[in-house]
């Protein structure tokens, strides 16, 4: 068996063992996102997952992918790390739960703000999240915004579970940021 074949088989077995339904590594353009979402919609429509859970899962994935494109500034990371490092997205299914995991390099300057936001969201119950969502929605912001600050609140509301995350330092300036949302079926 060639080295490539055995690597492909190892990867295949690993993904099978971890019940990875979908995974992608590369630049997440709007076109790529749309294609991933199209596949997801298609496979969901043939599943026995109820419509509300399907929509929640879809919504979480949209926000996770949007988050990556906002926090992953390819050129800056490439400059600091001296190589390209595309983000990763994975969807897996285990024990009646879907797990949505994204991983991408972020500048260490972004870490504190991200931790603060996730910790705040994790500290709130459904009512608290709805109130936080409404307050954020009511905030004035310029019309050229590409981000309303609602994404992570929306993920937490749709997930109904605490978000798990980790920042693993890679260089003095860059960390690898992994966030996982879980939704029960």
């Amino acid at each position: 068996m060639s080295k490539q074949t055995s690597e492909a088989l190892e990867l295949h077995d690993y993904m099978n063992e971890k019940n990875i339904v979908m995974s992608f590594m590369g630049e997440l353009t709007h076109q790529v996102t749309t294609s991933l979402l199209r596949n997801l919609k298609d496979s969901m429509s043939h599943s026995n997952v109820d419509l509300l859970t399907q929509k929640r899962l879809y919504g979480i994935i949209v926000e996770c992918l949007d988050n990556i494109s906002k926090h992953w500034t390819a050129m800056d990371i490439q400059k600091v790390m001296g190589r390209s490092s595309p983000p990763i997205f994975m969807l897996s299914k285990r024990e009646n739960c879907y797990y949505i995991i994204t991983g991408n390099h972020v500048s260490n300057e972004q870490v504190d703000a991200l931790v603060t936001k996730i910790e705040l969201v994790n500290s709130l119950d459904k009512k608290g999240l709805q109130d936080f969502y409404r307050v954020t929605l009511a905030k004035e912001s310029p019309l050229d915004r590409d981000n309303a600050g609602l994404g992570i609140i929306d993920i937490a509301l749709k997930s109904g579970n605490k978000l798990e995350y980790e920042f693993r330092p890679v260089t003095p300036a860059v960390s690898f940021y992994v966030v996982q949302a879980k939704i029960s079926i």
Partner: protein
Amino acid sequence: MNPLIIDPSEFSPKVVLDPTKNIFELSGESRPENTSKFYVPILQWLEQYQSVLYWEKDKFGQGALRTFEFKFDYFNSTSAKFIMDVLMQLDKMAQEGYNINARWHYDKRDEDMKESGEEFSKLLKKLPIEFVEIAAA
């Protein structure tokens, strides 16, 4: 005033703002590549329409009821903020005494879509919103 019609795509909603036919509707999925570029023309159109209503009211008195239909399957969080802006613009018109209301449609199985509409409505002062449940297809 010219209508504003935008055909739907896989990621952007259908928009029909047509005063001559008295049809005002946003429907489908909303996660445009550039959300601002998509929604700002809608907000600008509504601002212009408010001037038309002012002129009409001044000349002919209060006009017929204008109903704005919101029929979203899904919208992302960035779109949510712009949908709020649209509703705020309509609310401003309602506060100024124009005869308008909104209808928020949701699939019976999709309680989140209903709750989103309720969250929006809590931030409005005057615009009446009717919630319309659609039976499962």
